[in-house]
């Protein structure tokens, strides 16, 4: 909990998030995860990464937008294995490009085991986006 709070404050200090976003993240952290509304899922041996986006209609005559993406996890694992075949220069360029976007991530350190660990921890990830009158819900989970 304390670690997460420090991470949010670090992101605010480095300018990666605004004060409003930091406040919202801290509020979510204090409230704790809201798991009661989410359906129970089995994570024995997940095969797919699922991304669901639902956007509420803006007004009369507008229709709800739905996006449903299913990516085989094997594809992600194969992609991570391909990383080892990338030339050193390309990996350095990728790291630099990520750093320019504010993502402090070293591609060289990423291994297939890390992906499995990340997916296991992903569980059922949900983001609510509320931008003026446009409300959307993004859910990312394994199935």
């Amino acid at each position, binding site marked *: 909990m304390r670690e997460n709070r420090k991470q949010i404050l670090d992101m605010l200090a480095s300018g990666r998030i605004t004060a409003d976003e930091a406040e919202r993240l801290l509020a979510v952290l204090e409230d704790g995860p809201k798991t009661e509304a989410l359906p129970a899922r089995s994570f024995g041996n997940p095969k797919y990464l699922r991304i669901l986006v639902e956007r509420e209609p803006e007004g009369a005559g507008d229709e709800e*937008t*739905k*996006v449903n*993406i*299913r990516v085989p996890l094997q*594809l992600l694992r*194969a992609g991570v*294995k391909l990383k*080892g*075949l990338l030339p050193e220069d390309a990996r350095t360029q990728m790291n630099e490009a990520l750093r320019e976007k504010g993502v402090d991530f070293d591609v060289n350190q990423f291994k297939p085991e890390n992906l499995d660990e990340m997916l296991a921890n992903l569980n059922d990830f949900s983001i609510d986006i509320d931008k003026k009158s446009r409300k959307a819900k993004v859910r990312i989970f394994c199935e």
Partner: protein
Amino acid sequence: MMPPLMLRLQVERFGGGRRFRLWLPLFLFWLLILPFAVVTLPVVALVLAFLGYRPLRLFAAYWSLLCAIPGSHLEVNGRRGFVFLHVY
């Protein structure tokens, strides 16, 4: 481990717009390129080995990537239209 065998693509534009549906038999494509691949792969492997890559490792990685594609699914239902893509 099987490569993608069939692709289904559907694009629709609401309000009397165009509708496009396609079932693409990818297994025919693999059958077509198989003789070509048998002839060219040894040459490609030699070139890759000369350039310092490990051809067998590279082919295995690309094959596993190709075989992982089946099951991919994309569906977008928007206010203007509908897009559906599924790889079998």
